[in-house]
């Protein structure tokens, strides 16, 4: 009985997968052929590499958004500002004389506590009023944080300097900044740890149960409000690390939160909410397509890629490309 029902389903899903792989391969091949005609094939590897390196960071930003969205169904509109705040804490710790990679855990802990406070005092009591008040309150928190940071610390652009900032790796003619490689590694390790936490621990199990159905989870004896608080803290802490990495690899100022948040939403929609692996893969897809777009069309259109991906995914497959 079971096989009779599940067989057609698996066949159609495999067909879909095969068709999509063929389509993607066809697009890649035609692109490759087009580049061959233009004689610019040599540019392909560096673009791909830098896209992947940037995409890892987008993925880490998106993991936090994705967990919060998956568990509470609340879009955390202040994620970008939490990210910048994390960058600031690392920046000060570095100015204080600490190594940036040691300062990151401190930023993680500070933002974790801040996230706990935000969730338990402001967002949690609003969850019973439906979806709109919590979203709007995170929007208010975002603007408040941004304006406080602008008032206190000016809109200057800051860079976190590290010991490896000046080192470039040379791999078969491609020059890669060492910081980007380290940032990608940290992002991947953190995403993997988050996934391990969600899959292996009892608390992670509770978290996944809530993300599937919070009312039933409550009936099963899970303290949903406590899990929500912890989950928001985790998201904020991940944002802090991502912000520190952005400060090391690129630069940061109080106003950069918005664009990174937009990109994270596009990635979350791409990867499916609450899906850590989907977020990382989606981030890398976004990073690669952005670098390609900026190479083909010019720098003015890099941000448009995220909007385009968001709209296309929501029209074609609203549950994300990795949804089962």
């Amino acid at each position: 009985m079971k096989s009779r029902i599940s067989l057609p389903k698996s066949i159609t899903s495999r067909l879909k997968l095969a068709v999509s792989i063929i389509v993607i391969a066809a697009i890649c091949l035609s692109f490759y052929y087009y580049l061959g005609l233009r004689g610019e094939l040599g540019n392909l590897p560096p673009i791909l590499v830098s896209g992947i390196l940037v995409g890892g960071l987008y993925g880490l930003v998106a993991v936090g958004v994705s967990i919060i969205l998956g568990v509470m169904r609340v879009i955390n509109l202040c994620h970008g500002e939490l990210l910048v705040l994390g960058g600031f804490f690392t920046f000060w710790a570095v100015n204080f004389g600490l190594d940036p990679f040691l300062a990151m855990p401190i930023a993680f802990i500070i933002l974790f506590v801040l996230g706990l406070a935000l969730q338990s005092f402001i967002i949690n009591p609003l969850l019973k009023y439906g979806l709109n008040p919590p979203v709007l309150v995170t929007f208010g928190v975002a603007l408040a944080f941004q304006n406080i940071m602008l008032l206190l610390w000016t809109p200057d652009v800051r860079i976190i300097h590290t010991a490896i900032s000046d080192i470039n790796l040379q791999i078969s003619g491609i020059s890669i900044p060492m910081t980007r490689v380290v940032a990608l590694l940290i992002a991947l390790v953190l995403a993997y740890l988050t996934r391990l936490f969600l899959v292996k621990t009892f608390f992670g199990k509770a978290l996944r149960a809530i993300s599937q159905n919070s009312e039933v989870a409550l009936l099963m004896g899970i303290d949903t409000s406590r899990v929500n608080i912890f989950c928001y803290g985790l998201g904020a802490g991940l944002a802090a690390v991502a912000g520190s990495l952005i400060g090391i690899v690129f630069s940061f100022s109080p106003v950069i939160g918005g664009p990174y948040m937009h990109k994270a939403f596009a990635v979350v929609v791409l990867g499916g909410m609450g899906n850590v692996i989907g977020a990382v893969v989606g981030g890398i897809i976004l990073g690669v397509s952005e670098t390609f777009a900026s190479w083909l069309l010019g720098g003015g259109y890099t941000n448009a890629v995220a909007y385009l991906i968001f709209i296309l995914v929501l029209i074609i497959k609203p549950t994300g490309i990795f949804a089962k």
Partner: protein
Amino acid sequence: MKVSGGLFSSLRSPVVYLFILFTAIAFLIPIFVRTPYILFILYLCYIYVVQAENWNLIGGFAGQISLGHAAFFGIGCYTTAMMWIAGYPPILGIVLGGLLAAGFAVFLFPTFRLRGTYFAIGTLFLAAALQGFLLNWKFVGAGEGLYLPVPKEFLIEPFYYMALVLALASTVTCYMIAKSGVGLTFKAISEDDFAAASIGVGITRYKVLALVISAFFFGLSGGVYGHYQAFIDAYSIFGIYWGVTGLFMAIIGGTGTVVGPILGTFLLTIISEYLAKLGEIRLLVYSVAVIIVIRFAPEGIWGIITKKVRPRLKTYIEKSKPLK
């Protein structure tokens, strides 16, 4: 016989008479007050009233949180500016701007495939994408902005009356919608759009209707604002400020009511003007106020008045009546 409901059912309410009284005072103010500063603040207030009332139409009555109304405001503003530069009378530009914004809103019906919070992100992306587009479009000045042909004699009074009439028109429109069956349908959609659809309401049609009306008035308000400016650029016009003022004022006053947004507008403007000597903290004041209001009084100030103060007043009046 119809006892309750109908357009003129609440003519007995003191609020309507208060509204008429304040409108009359507002029309007479420029005769007695000659300070351009006060008139300018009131002019801004009326523009905010237009925005708050019309954001309230889609965000409060129909329950669809939009974070991208800056797009409609910007369309009105830019249309007026371009018409003015081309040599047409600006009034024509203002009307055309409103119509263009409404037309743009009609073409947004696919966004209503997005439910709840996804709609909020979609609209946020919409405004950001439009801003990015205008920043790259040479015809409208791209990133350098537009300098408008401002005449030497530039009095505030005509603009004051223009904004006042617009505010009045949008308030009356909102009132009529709230009292009609359309308003009831909007409320049904905001409570539960699946349930509304299941009893035969064409929910997409009504959502688009709400969006088109609010976009039309936002376009007009953008035109009236742009007409008074000497310089406009896409950074500020399509920026976060014009996307959130209407929203914040409507929420603080009380969404889903006609009086609430007006109350919220005047309250917020007065507070931020008093605090203006501390620096550019208008957005900070708005956002902190909105956090406090959503956290402690999700129904807004007018909600508190109608739910808590009015019944007590009634019992007080009844108690103080002499017994027969």
